[in-house]
């Protein structure tokens, strides 16, 4: 418990000793040992993790990615306030969904000869990806704090309800066309469209400044509306 009058302090302390005399009571002695250890626990685990994935079987690697994709599908179908889609983003899910949708929507070879007709595979693909990129850019330009790929991930995964709608419409169209058939398809597409918009808004709206939420959500609405229109007007 020595009085620590260190040498740098002594020159200033000499002139003002009477006023700052109490300061020496709060000084730290050099004799007190500091104990304990500083470790970063996660680092050790991460290193183990990395080295072990090199040795695992291919089936385990693929299953891990598929499970991640499946987990995110569940998050889209039951949208809760969770960060799973945002934190561990991946673009496998959006790719699978986009390719499936474009394959189902492309025009058949019969009316490929007319000058009208449905969209080509490339047109659907381009609309989905460029639409998602445009919405992400718009969101970032308005001042949102979501990263580029997180936003692409969310927008891509939220196409899942519309994929389900496309499957249902295709099955319904096997039963022949007619006004009742159309009404059922309209109802299904509207329901899935609303589900998509609600799911993506639940993830994206929090990242925007509060006075610009509507400005960021409207393009999402337009994007899913256009995709729903393409699904609804699909004729085999």
């Amino acid at each position, binding site marked *: 418990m020595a009085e620590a009058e260190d040498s740098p302090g002594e020159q200033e302390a000499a*002139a*003002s000793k*009477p*006023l700052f005399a109490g300061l020496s009571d709060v000084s730290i002695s050099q004799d007190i040992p500091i104990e304990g250890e500083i470790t970063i626990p996660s680092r050790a685990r991460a290193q183990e993790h990395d080295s072990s994935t090199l040795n695992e079987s291919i089936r385990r690697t693929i299953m891990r990615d598929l499970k991640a994709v499946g987990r995110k599908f569940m998050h889209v179908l039951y949208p809760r306030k969770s960060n799973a889609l945002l934190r561990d983003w991946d673009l496998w899910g959006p790719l699978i969904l986009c390719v499936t949708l474009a394959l189902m929507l492309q025009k058949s070879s019969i*009316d490929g000869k*007319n*000058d*009208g*007709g*449905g*969209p080509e595979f490339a*047109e659907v693909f381009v609309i989905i990806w460029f639409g998602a990129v445009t919405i992400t850019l*718009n969101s*970032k*330009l*308005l*001042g949102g704090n979501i990263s580029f790929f997180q936003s692409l991930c969310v927008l891509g995964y939220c196409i899942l309800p519309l994929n389900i709608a496309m499957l249902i419409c295709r099955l319904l169209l096997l039963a022949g066309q007619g006004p009742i058939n159309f009404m059922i398809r309209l109802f299904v597409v509207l329901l899935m469209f609303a589900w998509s918009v609600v799911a993506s808004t639940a993830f994206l709206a929090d990242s925007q400044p509060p*006075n*610009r*939420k*509507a*400005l960021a959500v*409207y*393009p999402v609405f*337009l994007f899913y*509306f*256009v995709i729903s*229109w*393409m699904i609804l*007007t*699909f*004729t085999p």
Partner: protein
Amino acid sequence: MAAVDDLQFEEFGDGATLLAANPDATTINIEDPSVSFGHQPRPPGSVGREEDEELLGNNDSDETELLAGQKRSSPFWTFEYYQTFFDVDTYQVFDRIKGSLLPVPGKNFVRLYIRSNPDLYGPFWICATLVFAIAISGNLSNFLIHLGEKTYHYVPEFQKVSIAATVIYAYAWLVPLALWGFLLWRNSKVMSMVSYSFLEIVCVYGYSLFIYIPTAVLWIIPQRVVRWVLVMIALGVSGSVLVMTFWPAVREDNRRVALATIVTIVLLHVLLSVGCLAYFFDAPEMDHLPAAITTPNQTVTAAKSS
């Protein structure tokens, strides 16, 4: 003792005595605020602009130039530069849309609503919505017109979307570019004219296209009279927004040049709306008969609609 004395505040005395002691010292002049309240020089632009804006709203005096260029301080290759074009809140976008729908004679859209904060959000997304509105409404309208014809096979004409996109984006960006270049050229000849920056012109054109979105949806109604009435209304509203914005910019010029500019602006607008109506929406047949009645009528109808 010396420490306590050191803590006494030292009077510095008059500035003049100090300056006499050290004549070469640098000095600054801090005025007493109560004295100089009425004489403070106005910061260039900011306070003066607000007063002039009130004048412009009431009696159209156009002496001040818009200082739109002063906000962009980041270099153009950074992301922040482009963020300055999206610096609008939701209520501002709604206000601008309302201003384009309800043009008040005498009030300039740019002065009143844009006020040196032009944004690219409105023009871009209004054009995108308009592209899809026209394509979808055209498709729907054709479907409803030809409903019941046995010879008609419904196709979602997806290629029309790309045509609509090209036309509308070209109109919303190339015409403002041409107009801006023209105004710049005339401005070099005739001084003291109101000049708009390129982004403000793009903004006016973008927001003036908003009226066409409900118009395109209502064009689904397959009645010729209804469609032309809608065209007239839409042209009236958006045309008046454009004319009231650009008339102050050209009226100090040669009379004929000014009139020619305004007429060209209106003509291009007319061309856009009539062209869209003619290309995307099939003409409703006045004597369209359902195909289920008789065979001769069916062939007549099929021949007429081809």
